[in-house]
């Protein structure tokens, strides 16, 4: 196995590797053999027309949708064959997720929303409080920590969501059109944050996006069409 890898791969461990993944819903083949590898700390933009299967791929990677064929490794761990509980464990420890429509827990305030993800992985309290405060400061929301999501603007919510996706030191952050519901100004702010934080924390990022602006924060752009990745 080592023989086939190049030197760069040996230095930087792989955050995500997807090999020949296929998925169909009934008769519709949505993913038709996807191969993808993302290195630790690498940022990859995934583009493609809507309906091409981008969200489905993300769901497969985080283990919410089972695949029909192929294998997915996250942080060196093969997902297929894991039990539901083990999948949940991989998901909460190794991945972060950013949604288009934020999806903060509506009954928890900003601080608690971020803290929640840290709690799920059992981060000790002292460390956790410091880290959440720190991250919220980095996303520029230290003055909004005790606000409920409903009292925050779209951009602010997405920044909380980013903090939440990163708080537990994941290897991989999946972001499904994170700027899709935002105005240009907040959108670029969110992208800037994603870039700087993933750089600083050495987190791999798979960013689904529609606009070319967004791809600028990424190291690499891949395109999907009709359930397959286009070469290049």
């Amino acid at each position, binding site marked *: 196995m080592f023989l086939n890898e190049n030197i760069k791969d040996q230095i930087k461990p792989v955050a995500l590797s997807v090999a020949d993944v296929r998925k169909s819903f009934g008769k519709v083949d949505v993913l038709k053999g996807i191969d993808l590898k993302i290195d630790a700390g690498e940022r990859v933009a995934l583009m493609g027309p809507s309906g091409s299967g981008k969200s489905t791929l993300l769901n497969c990677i985080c283990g919410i949708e089972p695949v029909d064929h192929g294998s997915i490794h996250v942080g060196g761990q093969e997902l297929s064959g894991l039990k539901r509980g083990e999948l*949940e464990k991989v*998901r909460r420890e190794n*991945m972060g997720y950013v949604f288009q*429509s934020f*999806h*903060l*827990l509506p009954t928890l305030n900003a601080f608690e929303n971020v803290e*929640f993800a840290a*709690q*799920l992985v059992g981060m000790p309290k002292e460390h956790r409080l410091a880290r959440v405060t720190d991250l919220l400061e980095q996303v520029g929301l230290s003055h909004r920590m005790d606000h409920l999501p409903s009292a925050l603007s779209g951009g602010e919510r997405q920044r909380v969501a980013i903090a939440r996706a990163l708080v537990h030191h994941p290897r991989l952050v999946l972001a499904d059109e994170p700027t899709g519901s935002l105005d240009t100004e907040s959108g670029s702010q969110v992208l800037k944050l994603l870039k700087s934080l993933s750089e600083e924390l050495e987190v791999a990022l798979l960013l689904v996006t529609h606009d070319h602006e967004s791809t600028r924060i990424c190291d690499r752009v891949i395109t999907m069409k009709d359930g397959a990745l286009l070469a290049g």
Partner: protein
Amino acid sequence: MGHYFLLLGIVAVGVGAFNGIRQASRSASANFGLFNQAVSGQSDFLIESPVQRLLEEDLAKLTRLSKEPDWHLVPVIEGSVTAVKNGSEDKKQLRLIGLDLLALGNLPTLAKEGLKFSDEDANWYDWLGSKNEVWVGQKTADLLEVKQGDSISFLASGRLVKMKIRMILNDPDGNLPDDLVLADLPTVQTLLSRPGELNRVEVVIDQVNRREDTAYLNDIENRLARELPQNLSLAPTQNRAADRAAMTAAFRLNLTILSLIAILVGAYLILQALDAAVVRRRSEIATLRSLGVDGSILFTTYVLEALVLGLFGSVAGVGVGQVLAFGAVGMLSDTVNALYFATSVEALNLTSIDVIVGLVLGIVFSLLAGWLPARDATQTPPAQVLARGDWSPGFSWLRSPVIGLGLLLLGGIALLFPPFVMEAGSNMPVGGFLAAGCWILGAALLSGHVLVLLAGWVRPFCSGPVFRLASSRLRDGSSRHRLAVAGLVVAVSMVTGMFQMIDSFRGTIEEWFDVRFQADLYISESGVTGAGTVNGIDPRLMDELLKDPNIKYADVMRICYAKPPRGVTVLAGVDMKHWSDQARQIWLKAPGSLQAVDGAEPALVSETFARRFGVMAGGVVELGTPDGTKKISPFGIFCDYGNEFGMAAISSDIWSDWTGSDRPINVSLYLRDRAKLLETRDRLRLAYPGLDVRNERELRDVALGIFEQTFKATDALSFIGLAVAFAGLLLGLLSIFDESTQTWQTLKHLGFSTHGFILAAGLEGAGIGVAAWVAGAITGLALGWLLVFVINVQSFGWTLLWTVPVESILWFGLLLTVVGFVSGMIAAIYWNFRR
């Protein structure tokens, strides 16, 4: 589709419970008219004395009337006997009716239809002298396992008598009630030790084909009334059935209210279920909205759905009601037997009014239940707005405390209403019931605030993600959480209130027993328990019994009905000296603390009596007795939980003067040698098989047995209420989870475990249970107070000692918490499974 059948079922059960109870209680307590219909055709008028007792001299005064060709007079005596099944211990209480067979033979209907009273006798006059012979219907014969010519043993007025079955009445349509025994008038008078007495005289018009002719009937009524002696009254037959129904009015009112509550809870379930449908289709509705579909169309659609549900559900409910009525009628008639008078379970009939009432109730409540979800659907924002978060706009009014507080206040004001006086003289505490309704509803509306408050207190102590999630969701108190709590609060408060009333009642009665029943042995006519039955013991038998050498003192009691200005009450003849000085009572006003008015007979009266006739502070009450109207005046008031008609006790001599009778109803014995108590008891039992001889312990068991019987229906209904409330909780939780789909999706992406989800759901359910318990128990305490100090005092006239069953309430809280927890988990598992 299955969903709709469930909803239909809910409507059907709600309507069915109401209809079933209505029918059952009606047939269990008002089957008076039956024997007339079955035996004599229908009688048209009744001649009665105000105290339900006619004497021979009254009959003599009717001689002239009896000679008129336009009508026939049928003297009737009625009482209860207990049949002892041959060769067994089985006893059955029967209604014994004595008829003047001679008069019966003249009846045109009988002559026409030829109801046979004998096989071998060619002529009606052969019936005469049918001493010691009885007639029973086919059903009674089957029940007692007897045939024509068999002998049958009765316990009557304290004696065991054997009668011969002259004939089993041909009853192909099954019209005769299964507790009916007919005999010749003198036979019954002897059996009941009521020589020369009648209950009433029935009047049957000769030209029965003119029954529809009101003018003719009015004319007959006028002619009869003109000739009637002063102390007797004339009434159309239907009134008598109404009288009897009125006697049990309070009891039936109680049941009606309980069954209405069943419908209300059913409506709540429907509301929850329809609402769940709206929540599940929320995004579809939102899409329709954003496509510009008008809110009123959505509203109409949902209301129509509720209407269809209500219609089909209540049609099914009428059927369900029939089934429930069959089940309930036996239980209810036992209660009526125990409390009021001998009755049987005939005539379970479905009238068109039942059908209409059932349909109207079902539809109205379904529409009410459908209205809120329909409104909620209408207020669903268009899809683009909906995407932002969790929604339940139509119920946002649940968040305002104003309506709830207003209702609590209104309830308080309602307490100022005076009770409404009903036909038979019993009181209906309108204000009390109104207050109960307002308080329950108000508390239900405010319970959401209790939930939020409690969750707010608990929240700082929740550290783990699961606890924190659950507590934050409860603290947020979505309208749907509030709705779920509200439904439970209604059930919890009612059940806690009922618990308290029953406990208070039981406690009071036990206390009363401890004080009141100090004698060694208690003797009464065997088999008869109802407070409305005034048969009694043969005086000669009593004299003989009292000769027993071990008796030191006998407190003999005699009772009869007396006619106050309104309704009916009980007049007792007792040893006044013993009652004032020796007999222990719980005295509300000790003898002598009130001054009896000069010129009126001094009396000791029960609290119920004093309250009903407004003599708590002394005064005079006029009572109609067989000897005319008499005045009595209380000089003491005692507590009595024996009957709700009230009782006035006067000296035995005066009682006998007024009633022309000296037939005792019961006697309490004080023994010389108490060590020989059991021996004496057994001796008396052996010598007098027709009497019940009990010591204090046994009497207490019987009384408490009657007590438990009375509350059986209440218990059953509370249980149904609770079960329905829990079903509502489950539905409510499902709605809550449906409404929070986005939250669960987020949690799933965060790697929140399924176990965590189920646990959090359980905690949410438990939180709802605890909040409902806190709000419900507080409301329940208020209801308990209301039941004990307002409703009971006003409707029955007795004050109970308020007992709060703290332990039961705590256990109930634990139960609610556990059930809430389990319901939450079940709902979560089901929800998870459905995804």
